[in-house]
């Protein structure tokens, strides 16, 4: 599903965020990316989502070489991915329903189809009764769940979640991780960046550890240079 070969990336200011990363994540896997603050977790997800571009090396996602995904191919590529952010990035000027419907509207689905799928997603995150309110009227955990519903509503092959449980209490975080696990069980590849090591260990999934832009462990294996 995802293969990194000797991938390095730099931000505009010359800050090298990732160095010679080699990793492989197979289809249908659920993998955590962890590491200290500034280790490069977000940068790794951004590369996969084409928010940033890598300098050297090769990235293959879903059989596509990311170097060749440029210009007008980027939107099509992204339609196969579901995103989730720590800061929700919900749109507060519209209802929960409309927020979740966004990826479907973009893909040009018809209203009946959209309603069916949004309701199914809302049902999954147990927010059916909130579809008509603005996300601003929801608690942090509820907003996070709306974000998850939006990330899965278009049935992407890959979900990228950056600190999806950022500042939620442990019980809520656990619920949300379980939700991701459910989607993973129906075949979606899930990649979650998180520094909540305790919970990650409890989830008992593959872990990728980064330190200062380098790969420390890969799916349980320690990398030695």
């Amino acid at each position: 599903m995802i293969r990194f070969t000797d991938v390095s990336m730099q931000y505009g200011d010359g800050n090298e965020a990732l160095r010679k990363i080699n990793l492989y994540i197979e289809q249908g896997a659920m993998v955590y990316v962890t590491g200290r603050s500034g280790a490069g977790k977000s940068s790794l997800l951004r590369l996969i989502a084409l928010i940033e571009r890598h300098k050297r090396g090769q990235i293959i996602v879903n059989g596509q070489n990311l170097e060749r995904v440029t210009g007008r191919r980027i939107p099509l590529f992204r339609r196969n991915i579901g995103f989730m952010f720590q800061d929700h990035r919900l749109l507060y000027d519209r209802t929960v329903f409309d927020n979740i419907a966004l990826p479907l509207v973009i893909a040009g689905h018809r209203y009946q189809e959209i309603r069916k799928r949004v309701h199914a997603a809302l049902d999954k995150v147990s927010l059916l009764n909130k579809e008509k309110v603005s996300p601003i009227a929801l608690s942090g955990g509820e907003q996070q769940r709306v974000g998850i519903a939006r990330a899965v509503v278009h049935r992407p092959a890959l979900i990228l979640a950056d600190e999806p449980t950022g500042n939620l209490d442990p019980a809520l975080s656990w619920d949300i991780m379980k939700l991701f696990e459910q989607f993973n069980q129906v075949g979606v590849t899930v990649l979650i960046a998180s520094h909540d090591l305790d919970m990650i260990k409890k989830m008992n999934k593959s872990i990728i550890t980064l330190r200062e832009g380098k790969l420390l462990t890969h799916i349980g294996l320690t990398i030695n240079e």
Partner: protein
Amino acid sequence: MNKRTTSQNNGLNLKRVFKVWLMQHAQACIYSIGQIFKSPVNSLLTTAVVGISLALPSGFYLLLDNCQRVAAGWDNSTQISLFLKLNIDEERALSLADEIRLFEGIASVDYISRDVALEEYRQKSGFGDAISALQENPLPSILLIHPRIRSLSSQDSEKLMQQLRALPEVDTAQFDRQWIQRLFAIIDIVQHVVIILSILLAIAVLLIVGNTIRLAIYNRRTEIEVNKLFGATEAFIQRPFLYSGLFHGIGGGLIAWCLLSLSLLMLKAPVLRLAELYSSDFSLHGLSYTGLLLLIATGASLGLVGSWVSVQRHIKAIEPN
């Protein structure tokens, strides 16, 4: 762009692709109307400025149009009186008239014989008796020349006058209404001023609409980012802003039309009074339906171009992070 998207997805047929395209246009259209009503004051202000900017040159244009209609009536009454020397007989005068008809810029030439001239003068002047007392007819025969004044520049007409004066049979030549030529020259200048004004105001409309759209884009950058993140094409993101520019332009066209109609209504009575004083049946010519359509089309295209420029410049700069 969309076509490729959908057909690549599933190899769907063209009809379905077209349907999606149409549906997304409808969505963008409705959405942008919603956005306009979400900030009605801002939208109204922009539309009003567009309207006034369109109304000003159109108003000037109408004014000019009406002036030209009035002046066109005067045009026919413009004439050159060619007083012939007293020793020119009727035969010579008529052949001279024929010659002059061949000159450039001449519409018609009328011959007034000495006797006719005297008769007219007798009737009009009220000096009938005094004239009857004269032994000999003191009046020369006259050629009345109607030049095609509009096709004549003032230089041309000066040349024509010189040409006429140089004729050996001619005693004096009098241009009756030189002022109308001056009027046409002034109208010509004002016409150019209106063109320049129109261009400047068109640029102003572009800037105003562009700025409004720029602000709208700025206010919705989060939305644009999220849209891009979930795979929206540039076309998808641009569409509502383009529709918004289009609607501001159309609205501006309608407002301009209202302003013009209102102004014409207010001018109607005084113009009628003036026309009565001149015992003329002149009335103001308003905007035709073609004019209205033209106004709306101009507004629409300016709005579209203004928003397009803004969209090109500002949406590309917004990338998700």
